């Protein structure tokens, strides 16, 4: 268990969180290498199917990063994302997947440091929870 490296799939919106992750890079902030970023134009693009697929295919956590409420580049896509994620967390819990494994964060383009904090924090949290047990693993 000690050498468990959580795999976290991150969906970052192009305008805020992806740019913030770039800023973390240009500022040479260091964080856990466990998140793998997939760029979407808006957090509202994140289909619940993507989240389920990520868990099914081996992710131990899924992180979605969008613009702060009121700041969405597309007016209100992030609110749509929030509704979906809250709903999805409840569904996941029904399936025995801790809701902490799915996380939604508002990270604006200037918050490079928040990317670092969230990436580290979530990696630690998932490391504590341990690997996600999938149906096929316990027959």
């Amino acid at each position: 268990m000690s050498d468990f490296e959580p795999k976290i799939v991150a969906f970052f919106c192009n305008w805020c969180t992806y740019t913030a992750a770039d800023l973390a890079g240009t500022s040479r902030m260091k964080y856990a290498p466990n998140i793998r970023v997939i760029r979407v134009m808006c957090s509202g693009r994140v289909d619940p199917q993507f989240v389920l697929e990520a868990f099914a295919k081996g992710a131990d956590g899924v992180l979605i990063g969008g613009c702060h409420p009121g700041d969405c580049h597309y007016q209100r896509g992030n609110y749509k994302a929030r509704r979906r994620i809250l709903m999805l967390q409840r569904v996941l819990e029904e399936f025995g997947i801790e809701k902490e494994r799915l996380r939604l964060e508002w990270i604006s383009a200037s918050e490079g440091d928040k990317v670092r904090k969230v990436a580290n924090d979530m990696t630690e949290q998932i490391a504590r929870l341990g690997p996600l047990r999938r149906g096929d693993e316990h027959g």
Partner: protein
Amino acid sequence: MSEEIRVGVYVCHCGSNIAGIIDVKSVAEEASKYPNVVVSREYKYMCSDPGQALIQEDIKQHNLNRIVVASCSPLLHEHTFRNATEKGGVNPFLFQMVNLREHDSWVHEDKEKATKKAIALVRAAVRRVALHSALERKEVPINPDVLIVGGGIAGIHAALTLANAGKLVYLVEKEPTIGGHMAKFDKTFPTLDCAACILTPKMTQVRAHPNIRLWSYSEVAGVDGFVGNFRVKVKRKPRYVDEEACIGCLACIEACIYKEGKFPDEFNMGLSKRKPIYFPFPQAVPQLAVIDPETCIEFKTGKCKKTCVAACDRNAIDFTQKETIEEISVGTIILATGFKAFDASRMPEYGYGTLSNVYTALEIERLVNSSGPTAGEVVLKNGQHPKSVGIIHCVGSRDEKTNKWCSRVCCMYSLKLAHLLREHTGAEIYNFYIDMRAPGKGYEEFYDRLLQEDGTHFIRGRVAEVTDWAMTEEEEGRLVIRVEDTLAGFVRRIPCDMVVLSVGLEPTPDAQDVRRMFNISCSTEGFFLERHPKLAPVNTFTDGIFLAGTCQGPKDIPDTVAQAGAAAAEALALIDRGSIELEPNTAYVVEDKCSGCHTCIALCPYNAISYDEEKKVAQINEALCKGCGTCVAACPSSAIVQRLFEDAEILEEIEGVLL
């Protein structure tokens, strides 16, 4: 799809930026094993000409039809590599970029883990790109008219540049006059030419220019649309004086029932008084009187004799004026909304607002100005001339408690004020500084000049406090500056008659609202965020919106004017091209799959989706679609497809990063 997929993978070293952490050789080697990959290389600088040529040669030689470049952020170089792909004869959208630098080598220290992550990211891109299809870029025409928000020196310079190029410019300024902060300055560093002498001719040019619509006392109330075609609502506040009729003769002000000014004059930083009907300052543009309804008796009681109305032989005064909204269409927008000076009362230890004879630098600009409240005579509250003046640098700058950034102009304007105060009063001048920053043409020389001026002293140290608590007879009745002289190595008490606080520059209080309205971002400290600090310093992340001046960060007048010119040039480049290509990431409905449930219609923030009553399916107007993909994620039948972000492509990417 019958076509054979042939992928070329290019892993960039970026000097040692990527290769220093990530084992680029093994990433390229690993990638060569993936299905469809025909060529996999690593190269020192992919963005260089030889790097791009490499892609083009490989396309020809190996018949490639998909390209993956693993280098820096797509926000920086996606455009570069799409072009290289296109030049090689492959559709630019049959390309995928991997962010190995900003998202991997720059943020991770463990080489092994960083390399493992790089491999996963490249694998995801290789899988994804196989599903890409050739796309056409949409072109939209650019409306040649330009909106400039803010009428300080930045907005003025940009407006004149564009207007001289023959473009119609709407210049919107929220104050009753244009001119901004620069109009309040006395002289400008390092040349000491008078601010008004260089600014006011430009202001009158703005007023007279046939291509400029100057809307002062107005604010942008709403922005809609996108690059090339913005629709803007401008709120025009009532000045209660008819703009067409008023000739700026001042008779109304003369005739006002208040014989003397009674209310703080904003232009003179409250150091003089104005009447309810006033002129912002003698060279104001436009040359129009304005009535302040907060102080005018007629507005407060309705019982004024209205002597101003009687005095105006052009019947220009109109108490019934209402706020109006103008709607305009423009293709590009330049934001030049300026800065706010740091509020010195936030540092009570310096006594601003509690001790008399403590001033901010902007107040001193007015005091030394010959058209200022004292006609340029620098006097203390008791009417005497100061014999010694302390200038405290970095007030609200380079300070953990207030603002951490350097405001860039304060050292230089402090030197200028030191010179002017010495010139006006003959007083001994003490500069209290942390570091002296004079990085500009002729700036160091100006500093040298001040160092040699008699009666000007420099003390290195951050001032602890300004107090009126005297400990010696010499200090009696004066202000005392307590400071650790870090060069001499002891604490000193310097008695002064007058203290000047060199306040820093901050974002304007409404910067966050402006940012939201124009759909742009702010950097951490709250100034507007440029697209790239070096390569796109006047662009924003929103196409067609540009930045000029201190709204982007503290800067002096030369830099502000240079940036305003750059913003105007960027706008011109768009306008003269006539059209702009948009990302083809719009969505469309697969009619066979659509059940006509209406879910998507309510979700679209742009009303781009409608219901086709005949076919009983949803329809997307791609001219209105901005490509957020919210409808795609919501469609219960997976009947909506977003180009470049198709479900299948993203699902491949997910699997790719996880394998």
